[in-house]
C-alpha cells in the first residue's frame, strides 16, 4: 500500500560558478538547514538521509556521503547515496519519497549537490578511453547533433533555441538563487554569441555551477504547520533505456515518453497541457525545451517549437516552463534534477516569490541524465491525492 507523501520544506544555495567560501559539507548544510527552517524542524526530526550527486570525479572525492554523514545529521540513521548521472537530483528525490510511500520512515531529508569548481567538470565528463579516437566533443558535443536532427525532423526555424535561452534567463532574474542573472539578455545577444557546438550558441548552453538543494519529505502524520502548505506527491516514475542501440530515437526517447505516461496516469492527468499549471523541466541546452514539450506530451510530434514560439511557455503564458530559470540559468549538475522537483513543489506551495506562477496548483518536475537515457519525474499538487 502507498502512504501519502508531502514536501514540507525546501532549501537551496545561491548557485555560483565557484563557492570558494565554503567546504562541501558547508554547502550541503546550507541547503539542508534552510529546508529544516522552512519545515520548522530540527535535525533530530529527520529519520533518514538520501544524498545524490553526479560523478564523484567532479570533486575528486569518492563516495562523499561517508564524509558528509555528520554534516547532514545522519549519524545513527540510514544514509543512502544515489547516482543516476544528470538526472540524479530527480531520482534522489524519488528514492527518498519511496521511503515515505513505502511506509519505512516518517520524514526523510533528500540532498543533492555539486561543487564542480573543486575539480574540472569538462575533464571529468570526457576522460579519454584508450583505443578510442582522440575525438572529444564535451557534453554539448554529444547533444548538439541530436538537436540538429530535431531541427531537421520538425522543420523548426533557427531562432527557437535562442528564444528559450532568453526566456529562461529573464525568469532567472526573478529567482534570487539562480546563478546567471542576465537582465539585459535578448534574442540578438544570444544569436551573436559564439557558436560552441554548431547549432548551439554559447548563450544557449547551461553554466557550470556550485550549488546544493534539499527537500524534506514527510508522511501525512509528519506534516508540520509551517509558513507554506505542503506540496503533495501525486505521481512518481523513473525509466531507463540503453544509451546506444540500433534504432534508438535520440531526439524523442521512448523511456521519456513511457515515464511521462506513467507519472501522468498515476496523477490522473490525460491532457498535460491543460491540466498541469507549470513545469520545471531539465533543459540544459535551449532546444531541449521544444524537444521535451513533444516527449512529455505537451505538444504533438513536430509541434513543440510552435508552442515555444507562441509564448505559451513564458512566465505569463498558459503553460510556463522553468519559471525558476531552469538548468540554463543554474547547473550544479548533481542538484539540477532536484532543483526541478523542488521548484515545482515551491510553485504549488505558493512559495516562489517573484517567479511564482499565479494560482499554480499542479506542477510537473522532470529530470533526465546521461545520454538522455535516464528519466525521473514527479507531479505535485496543493491538494491531497
Amino acid at each position: 500500500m502507498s502512504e501519502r507523501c508531502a514536501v514540507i520544506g525546501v532549501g537551496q544555495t545561491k548557485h555560483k560558478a565557484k563557492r570558494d567560501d565554503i567546504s562541501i559539507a558547508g554547502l550541503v548544510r546550507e541547503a539542508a538547514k534552510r529546508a529544516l527552517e522552512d519545515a520548522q524542524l530540527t535535525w533530530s526530526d529527520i529519520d533518514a538521509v538520501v544524498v545524490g550527486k553526479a560523478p564523484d570525479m567532479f570533486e575528486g572525492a569518492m563516495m562523499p556521503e561517508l564524509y558528509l554523514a555528520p554534516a547532514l545529521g545522519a549519524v545513527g540513521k540510514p544514509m543512502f547515496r544515489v547516482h543516476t548521472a544528470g538526472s540524479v537530483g530527480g531520482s534522489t528525490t524519488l528514492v527518498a519519497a519511496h521511503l515515505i510511500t513505502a511506509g519505512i520512515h516518517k520524514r526523510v531529508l533528500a540532498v543533492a549537490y555539486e561543487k564542480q569548481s573543486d575539480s574540472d567538470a569538462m575533464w571529468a565528463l570526457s576522460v579519454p578511453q584508450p583505443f578510442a579516437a582522440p575525438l572529444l566533443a564535451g557534453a554539448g558535443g554529444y547533444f548538439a547533433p541530436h538537436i540538429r536532427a530535431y531541427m531537421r525532423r520538425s522543420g523548426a526555424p533557427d531562432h527557437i533555441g535562442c528564444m528559450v535561452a532568453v526566456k529562461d534567463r529573464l525568469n532567472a532574474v526573478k529567482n534570487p538563487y539562480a546563478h546567471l542573472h542576465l537582465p539585459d539578455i535578448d534574442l540578438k545577444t544570444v544569436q551573436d554569441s559564439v557558436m560552441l557546438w554548431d547549432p548551439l550558441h554559447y548563450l544557449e548552453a547551461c553554466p557550470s555551477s556550485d550549488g546544493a538543494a534539499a527537500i524534506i519529505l514527510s508522511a501525512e502524520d509528519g506534516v508540520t504547520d509551517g509558513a507554506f502548505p505542503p506540496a503533495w506527491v501525486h505521481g512518481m516514475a523513473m525509466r531507463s533505456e540503453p544509451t546506444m542501440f540500433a534504432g534508438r530515437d535520440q531526439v524523442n526517447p521512448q523511456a521519456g515518453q513511457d515515464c511521462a505516461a506513467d507519472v501522468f496516469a498515476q496523477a490522473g492527468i490525460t491532457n498535460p497541457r491543460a491540466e498541469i499549471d507549470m513545469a520545471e523541466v531539465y533543459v540544459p541546452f535551449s532546444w531541449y525545451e521544444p524537444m521535451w514539450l513533444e516527449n512529455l506530451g505537451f505538444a504533438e510530434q513536430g509541434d513543440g517549437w510552435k508552442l515555444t514560439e507562441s509564448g505559451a511557455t513564458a512566465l505569463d503564458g498558459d503553460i510556463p516552463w522553468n519559471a525558476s530559470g531552469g538548468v540554463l540559468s543554474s547547473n550544479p549538475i548533481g542538484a539540477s534534477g532536484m532543483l526541478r522537483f523542488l521548484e515545482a513543489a515551491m510553485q504549488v506551495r505558493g512559495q516562489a516569490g517573484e517567479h511564482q506562477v499565479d494560482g499554480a496548483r499542479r506542477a510537473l518536475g522532470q529530470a533526465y541524465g546521461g545520454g538522455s537515457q535516464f528519466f525521473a519525474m514527479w507531479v505535485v499538487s496543493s491538494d491531497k491525492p
Partner: protein
Amino acid sequence: MADASKSPQADDRGPVTTLATPIHLDYSFTPGIAQSRNLRGLAEGKFIGQRCSVCGKVYVPSRGSCPTDGVPCTEDIVLPNTGTITTFCVVNVPFAGQSIEIPYTCAQVLLDGANISFMGLIQEVLADEVHMGQRVEAVWVEPEDLTPSMASVKYFRPTGEQDAEYETYKDYL
C-alpha cells in the same frame, strides 16, 4: 596545558580557503572480447561489426552485448569504408584533453550495413558544407601507423556521391 606564551603566532596571511590535492590515478583498461575483435580489425584497416543473434542488428563498434537483448554479439561482419552522415555538430569550444584544432566537425557516421552510427571527425570539406545525408568514406593512416585503435582512422571525407535519401537514415537519428 600548553603555555600560551609559547603558542605559534597567528600570522596575517588570513585563513586557509583552498586546499589543492593533486590526484594521479593509473588504470588498466580492458576493451573486452568483442571490442578486441573490432580493434584487431582496425589494426588491419578494416571496420568489423558484430551482429546480434536475437535482433539481427549490426553494431560497430561492439561493446560486449546487444544493448536491447543483453546477449553477446558473436557474428563478425566486415563493413565497407563508406557511410552516411546522419547528423553532426561543429565543435568550437576549447577544453582540457582536446587534441584537434578548433573548429572541427564531429559527425555521426552510419557505415553501410551497420545499424548504429558512431562519432567520426570530418575533414577535407568546409564546416558549413557538411550536411545530413552526406556520403563519406574513411581515410586511414599510413599502413605502418595502423594500431588496434580508432586512431587508425584519420577522419572521414565526402565521397562526392549524391546524398543519401532522408528515409534511409531517419531512423538512425
